[in-house]
């Protein structure tokens, strides 16, 4: 049972929230209508619609673009695994203390500085066209492989910093507790520090994963026939940009589940660590 006072308060709250929802709904509809009207009544709209939103072209290009997207997905999975392993290694190297490890630390730091600063597109050109230019036997020539190498190089530097932030967020008292039990540095990292660090940076890692998803489309500049390249080919033969829109939409659809997962993980992490 609740008191009349509380009943009256609840009724007030309900009516207030009904009003807010109504306002939000109406304003959204009005905004959408205005935007739609502005675009469709613009003098260039008929042409834009023909060259960007042509249903027939979209249907014809879809199979090829989907094929290309499948390549993007495979590149994404392989790169992500390599990036996580490499980044974790670099981050762990950067935490080593003592003069013996100085050269290793400097190398790891240099790597991160270099590849975090280097624009991805330039890295792609350097790896994609520079490496094969050396004409060394044994080096890969496949643009897919070369593109993946460039992605792994650049993203590892970013993700290593994410891991490092996580490692440094683990309180020194956790290290003291682990060392006092007789664990050496390696086991302390592996069993005590990294599991806590990874949990804390999981949202940031997923965010980088979403970014990688779309950057996988950049391997097309090396000639790999991925979704973007397939769209280019279809556009060229149909004199129509619709295939690019198709590829773009597919990339967005691919990113939505990852983005929702990232949200979910962030919320759970906030609950778990925020309360503690």
């Amino acid at each position, binding site marked *: 049972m609740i008191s009349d006072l509380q009943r009256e308060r609840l009724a007030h709250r309900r009516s207030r929230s009904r009003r807010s929802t109504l306002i939000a709904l109406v304003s959204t509809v009005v905004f959408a209508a205005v935007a739609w009207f502005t675009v469709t009544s613009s003098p260039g709209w008929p042409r834009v619609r023909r060259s960007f939103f042509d249903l027939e072209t979209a249907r014809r290009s879809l199979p090829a673009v989907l094929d290309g997207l499948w390549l993007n997905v495979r590149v994404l999975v392989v790169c992500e695994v390599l990036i996580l392993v490499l980044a974790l290694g670099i981050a762990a190297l950067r935490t080593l203390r003592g003069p013996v490890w100085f050269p290793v630390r400097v190398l790891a730091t240099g790597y991160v500085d270099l590849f975090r600063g280097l624009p991805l597109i330039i890295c792609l050109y350097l790896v994609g066209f520079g490496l094969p230019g050396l004409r060394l036997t044994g080096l890969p020539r496949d643009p897919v492989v070369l593109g993946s190498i460039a992605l792994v190089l650049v993203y590892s530097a970013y993700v290593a910093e994410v891991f490092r932030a996580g490692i440094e967020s683990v309180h020194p*008292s*956790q290290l*003291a*507790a*682990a*060392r*006092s*039990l*007789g*664990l*050496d540095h390696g*086991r302390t990292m592996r*069993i*005590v520090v990294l*599991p*806590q660090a990874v*949990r804390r940076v999981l949202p940031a890692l997923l965010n980088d994963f979403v970014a990688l998803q779309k950057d996988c489309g950049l391997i097309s500049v090396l000639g790999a026939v991925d979704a973007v390249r397939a769209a280019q080919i279809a556009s060229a033969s149909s004199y129509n940009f619709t295939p690019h829109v198709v590829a773009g939409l597919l990339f967005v659809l691919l990113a939505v589940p990852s983005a929702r997962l990232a949200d979910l993980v962030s919320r759970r992490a906030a609950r778990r660590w925020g309360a*503690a």
Partner: protein
Amino acid sequence: MSGPVLSVRGLVKSYGADRVLDGVDLDVHEHEVVVLIGASGSGKSTLLRCVDLLEEVDDGQVLLDGQDVSDPRVDADVARRAMGVVFQQFNLFPHLSVLDNVTLASRVVHGVPRERAEREALALLERVGVGDKARAHPDRLSGGQQQRVAIARALAHEPRLLLLDEITSALDPELVGEVLTLVRELAAQGRTILMATHEMGFAKQVADRVCFLDRGRLVESGPPEQVLGEPEHERTRQFLRRIVAAGRLV
């Protein structure tokens, strides 16, 4: 009689220009309970950390059963296995269950098979009164329960020497008793203990020897009734007066 379990000789530790330990000498014999008292910042934690080799000493020696473990040629990871530490803030591993916290060192460092390690850990958790929490994570436990788990963790690998650093200072007053009772039991079992505490009543009952640390120097050391009852040094008297004023001396 054999030599002391722990022998600290002329220990010096500085942070920058700050000489936190200024030539400390201290012996702890087998089955002895030695209590460190002293104002906040007098160097109690630093001394315990140096003994456990968590800090590099700037001069002097730490001898465990006669072996100089502060020698850089000694593997500190191995030397630490002879000691168990309980910290003021418990420092349990939040991502591991209570049971995994307690068995970690046995399994990973001492190579005890998981099954045996867990059997022993469960018996130990039962003894410290948190047997029913073995599968829980530390954040589900009260402060007193967490601290008892931390004590079980420190005992799991059968250390020669137990180091306790103000293990009741982070607890709510009503939880202090349960942890002190446990330490009393450990002392009665003949454990060798070096502990820092502000619980003067407890020190009086349980300590074989009380050492007063003041600005990094061991000013006074002796049986509790002497150091706490009729201290020789003015600094000790001042410290005890402040403690009495704060209502901590029973």
